[in-house]
């Protein structure tokens, strides 16, 4: 009953006119940012951090703004995948498979509104799941000591590699780069300057916003250069904009199944929206069997990944809010934003600042409703934005990125650092390294080191504390399973190949 009470309070926070306008602005900005090539939820949220801070928004409004932008970006990404067949990011690849064929058949408007509806259901299921489970998890997490936290973070990092599938080693190296970068700067415990090279601008460490914008915006700008010669014609969204009741009913069971799946995948660290959408699509394809026209514009094929993405995006907020351990690149950025406001996410947040937590959860409901409503009148304007050519867009993105970085500390050193990180990020991308593990490692690095040192201080240097309690031991077992997964998968693939060779 307490939970409902708190949720009511949360709606009280989220439904104040000021916060409603904030959420509306956030969803609009987020949708536009998600639409544009080269900008995704990670850059969108990161760019807004210094701006929200400069605007002097109170913490709960700032959080609502960031959450709305996050959801809006996820939503905007699907517009370009349905109309242009260009997935805005990895998670929307599955949306293009059936969304684009639907648009080609003259059902662009229906595809867009149906995907918005599906993602709304997914997000709704996940938000309900969050309301149910987050307080329980938070209560349970209070029993966590530094050793448990350290092991949990090791698990999160390993999960990234285990779940990412095809390139575990590269994911692992990328995460380690991030973990290492977090140790640059003055060491809080001993006052030793680490890896600063006597540069005063580095004593504070690498600024989070600088790292994010360098890795994601600058490298994307360089990547877009390779594609200047290609023009892409958007499918015109004409005719019926809204799906009808029959269409919604035909995908309803798909929505429910994939929403639950998305939520569970979202809560697991490292899995996230990309994996959730892929698994959802494959599962539904198998369930539909021969009756499905998957890949040729099947509505279920559109609804499945979209619902899963919606569920996973909200589910990813659960470990972030309750444990303070982010599970995805975007939630890592949000933790960075929270720490600017001196808010430490974690179990205590639920007790000390319930307004913020429940206000955020309630605003997720509100933002989701807004996105569905926005879709219908605004879609023509959004498709117009898609027609903006790269030559006008990219310089503006570069300049705004510059402003975002400069706004943090007002030094040009950060600009140079961002360009350096951007070039490094570009090289990493060209060599097929995933970038969000770098980000996740960077956020987890500081926490991980602090918790490790605290744990070993408690035990006076004895390493046993890291695996002696039942929780830590259990998490280590899970970690070991995760480590074995990619090895097992590679081994199975090899033996399948060998069998295929033997049969041939």
């Amino acid at each position, binding site marked *: 009953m307490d939970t409902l009470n708190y949720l009511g309070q949360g709606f009280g926070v989220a439904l104040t006119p000021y916060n409603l306008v904030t959420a509306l602005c956030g969803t609009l900005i987020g949708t536009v940012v998600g639409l544009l090539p080269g900008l995704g939820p990670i850059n969108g949220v990161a760019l807004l951090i210094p*701006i929200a801070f*400069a605007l002097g928004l109170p913490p709960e409004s700032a959080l609502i703004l960031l959450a709305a932008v996050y959801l809006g970006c996820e939503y905007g990404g699907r517009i370009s995948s349905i109309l242009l067949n260009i997935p805005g990011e990895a998670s929307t690849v599955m949306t293009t498979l059936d969304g684009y064929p639907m648009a080609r058949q003259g059902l662009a408007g229906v595809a867009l509104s149906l995907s918005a509806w599906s993602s709304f259901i997914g997000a709704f299921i996940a938000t309900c799941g969050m309301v149910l489970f987050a307080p329980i998890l938070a209560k349970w997490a209070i029993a966590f000591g530094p050793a448990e936290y350290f092991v949990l973070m090791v698990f999160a990092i390993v999960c990234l590699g285990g779940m990412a599938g*095809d*390139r575990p*080693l*590269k994911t692992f*190296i990328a995460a*380690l780069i991030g*973990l*290492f970068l977090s*140790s640059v700067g003055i*060491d809080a*415990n*001993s006052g*030793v300057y*680490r*890896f600063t090279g006597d540069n005063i601008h580095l004593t504070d460490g690498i600024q989070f916003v600088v790292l994010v914008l360098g890795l994601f915006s*600058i490298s994307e*700008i*360089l990547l*877009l*250069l*390779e*594609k*200047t*010669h290609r023009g892409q014609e958007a499918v015109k969204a004409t005719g019926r904009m809204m799906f009808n009741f029959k269409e919604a009913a035909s995908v309803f069971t798909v929505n429910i199944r994939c929403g639950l799946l998305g939520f569970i995948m979202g809560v697991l660290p490292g899995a996230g929206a990309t994996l959730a959408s892929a698994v959802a699509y494959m599962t539904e394809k198998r369930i539909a069997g021969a009756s499905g026209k998957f890949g040729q514009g099947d509505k279920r094929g559109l609804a499945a990944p979209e619902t899963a993405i919606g569920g996973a995006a909200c589910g990813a907020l659960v470990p972030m809010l309750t444990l303070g351990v982010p599970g995805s690149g975007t939630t890592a950025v949000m933790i960075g934003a929270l720490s600017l406001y001196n808010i430490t996410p974690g179990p205590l947040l639920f007790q000390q600042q319930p307004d913020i937590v429940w206000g955020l959860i309630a605003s997720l409901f509100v933002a989701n409703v807004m996105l569905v409503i926005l879709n219908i009148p605004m879609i023509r304007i959004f498709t117009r934005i898609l027609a903006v*050519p*790269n*030559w*006008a867009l*990219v*310089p*503006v993105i*570069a*300049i*705004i990125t*510059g*402003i975002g970085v*400069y*706004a943090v500390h*007002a030094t*040009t050193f950060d*600009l*140079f650092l*961002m*360009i350096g990180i*951007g*070039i490094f990020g*570009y*090289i990493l991308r*060209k*060599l*097929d390294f995933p970038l969000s593990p770098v980000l996740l490692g960077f956020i987890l*690095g500081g926490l991980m*080191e602090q918790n*490790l*040192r605290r744990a*070993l*201080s408690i035990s006076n*240097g004895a390493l046993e504390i890291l695996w002696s309690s039942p929780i830590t031991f259990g998490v280590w077992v899970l970690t070991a399973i995760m480590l074995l997964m990619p090895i097992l998968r590679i081994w199975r693939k090899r033996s399948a190949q060998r069998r295929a060779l033997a049969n041939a």
Partner: protein
Amino acid sequence: MLLQRIFASVLLLVCIGLALMAWPYQAAFSYEPVGPRAFPLLMLGLMGMGLLYMIFRPAPIVHSEDDPQLDRETLIKIGICVVLLLVFAGTFEPLGFIVSSILIGIPMARLYGGRWLPSVVIISLMSIGLYLLFDRVMDVPLPLGLLDVLEN
């Protein structure tokens, strides 16, 4: 494959360099058993092991079909783009936001295939607009630089 090996070797050398740099890090006096160098050394060590494996067994890069191959022309373009960004960072404070963003924005728009006249018009308007939006409306202070004289 070769590129990956080169990259992994360079990064491995960087790792070794950083590890040597971290070796002398020691707290003058401390009450905790783990000093400031343990964590970075652990990370560098693990990264080094991963990189060593990559040098000997690099994974093939799967190219998606629409991924264009890097040619000389694109590399030159990327070089120019990086130089432009560096110029932006260098002139941001001395010349001021508006001048420096026009200075690099127009060649950048050209680089991405815009024509002269629209590029000049749009980038100039955008620079001034962004300055007004961020500095005046949103309270993000941006340097005026050369245009400082216009202020008073």
